[in-house]
């Protein structure tokens, strides 16, 4: 779940990270008053969860309080990637001498957290990685061994920062790493982290993502920031389809058939099991398939839960077929999922043999499941067919590869 910039900065401030004077405002009058209080040039920033604010025109600059009020009116209606601003942040405009980038996130390949640091901040870090790789350091650290400032020092020093700049940056980066670990974040990023003309360093923009499953462990913080239990805080508001998917999962406590994310393709996906969802989704895309959705099933969902998810996916305009694929399952029953998808197809008025492109769920009760699938003429396969190959077969039926 993502935090708005003003919330990220509230957390930064709580932990002593250096920030400019700022205020969240909700009217032009408040914007004028905030700019007066700041007493100098200001930045007016729309508070949205998605990126691309500057390009969309949701960040403006003002030299006077009247200009700040006018820019408030200009920024407020700006839609960024389909998202309206929740509020506006007025912040002092700082005289910048140099911009840095620092991010703490997880490296899935190394299975370790990593600090990314660059002395070329303020721009897209992927671009820096591609065009100036020597200006981006990657420093992994352990979640088991005690954390020390050494990690931050290594990350910063690796791009050639030395002297007093290094000394001033180390505590900032170290605090960001501590925040990352303390609040179960999946991303803690400051970009830009600015060196001002007077030599001070401050956080100009920040981005925090918390692991959604960790929300329960951080209720006090979320309450302090005013984040309600019902706020999903994804990159964009949930679609009707996604809300319906969440409902399918919520009404039945048995197993999981949820985390539905809508895409605009024609192949519906019922996927899951131990990372299988991501693997299978990628396998479909890599082989030219166009997923209509992402989802996760597992934990032995009931027949009706699978049925309702199937019906929901088949009700989505543009969905021609569905692919039902999982990793090898031990705690989900193949026969129950088979019953659910077949019944879902039939209740949706579709022929399972036609609409199910592939059923690839090996594991517990697969013999029973395969009997059900065979009776209904559905193409299925066992674990001798890899997930990648199964996804390829589905794509082939869609004419995608």
């Amino acid at each position, binding site marked *: 779940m993502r935090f708005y910039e003003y919330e990220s900065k509230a957390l930064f401030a709580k932990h002593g990270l250096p920030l400019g004077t700022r205020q969240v405002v909700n009217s032009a009058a408040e914007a004028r008053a905030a700019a007066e209080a700041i007493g100098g040039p200001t930045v007016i920033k729309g508070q949205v969860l998605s990126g691309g604010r500057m390009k969309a025109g949701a960040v403006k600059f003002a030299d006077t309080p009247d200009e700040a009020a006018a820019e408030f009116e200009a920024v407020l209606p700006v839609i960024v990637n389909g998202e309206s601003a929740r509020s506006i942040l007025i912040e002092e405009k700082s005289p910048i001498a140099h911009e840095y980038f620092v991010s703490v996130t997880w490296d899935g390949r190394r299975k370790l957290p990593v600090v990314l640091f660059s002395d070329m901040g303020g721009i897209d870090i992927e671009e820096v990685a591609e065009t100036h790789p020597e200006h981006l350091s990657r420093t992994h650290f352990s979640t088991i061994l005690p954390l020390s400032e050494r990690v931050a020092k290594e990350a910063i020093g690796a791009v050639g920062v030395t002297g007093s700049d290094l000394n001033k940056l180390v505590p900032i980066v170290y605090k960001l790493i501590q925040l990352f670990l303390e609040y179960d974040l999946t991303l803690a990023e400051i970009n830009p982290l600015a060196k001002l003309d007077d030599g001070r360093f401050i956080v100009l923009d920040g981005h925090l993502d918390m692991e959604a499953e960790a929300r329960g462990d951080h209720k006090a913080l979320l309450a302090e920031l005013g984040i309600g239990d019902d706020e999903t805080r994804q990159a964009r508001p949930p679609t009707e389809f996604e809300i319906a998917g969440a409902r399918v999962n919520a009404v039945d406590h048995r197993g999981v058939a949820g985390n539905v994310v809508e895409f605009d393709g024609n192949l519906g996906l019922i996927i899951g099991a131990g990372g299988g969802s991501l693997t299978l989704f990628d396998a479909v895309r890599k082989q030219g398939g166009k997923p209509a959705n992402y989802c996760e099933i597992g934990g032995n969902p*009931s027949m009706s839960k699978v049925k309702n998810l199937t019906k929901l996916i088949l009700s989505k305009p543009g969905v021609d077929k569905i692919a039902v694929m999982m990793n090898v399952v031990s705690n989900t*029953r193949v*026969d129950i999922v088979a*019953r659910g998808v*077949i*019944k879902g197809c039939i209740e949706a008025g579709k022929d399972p043999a036609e609409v199910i492109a592939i059923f690839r769920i090996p594991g517990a009760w697969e013999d*029973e499941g395969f*009997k*059900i699938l065979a*009776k209904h003429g559905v193409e299925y396969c066992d674990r001798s067919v890899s997930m990648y190959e199964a996804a390829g077969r589905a794509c082939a039926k869609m004419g995608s590869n």
Partner: protein
Amino acid sequence: MPGMFIDVEVDAKVAADAELTKKLVEVCTVSIFAAKDDGTLDIVEDNLDECVLCDLCIQAAPKGTVRVKKLYE
């Protein structure tokens, strides 16, 4: 009316027995059995396809009086 995948048959004598009905209602994890107002057995057709083939109902009643049929075999 059977489900799409599963049917459950119960002998009339068992279905009329309030004590056995109570037992069947208790053991079924997916609520296929319910008790009518008079204590006799009702089979909830909507739940038949939820059957997990645990056989607890078969064990709860006298041998051969409850039969779970897989309609896909």
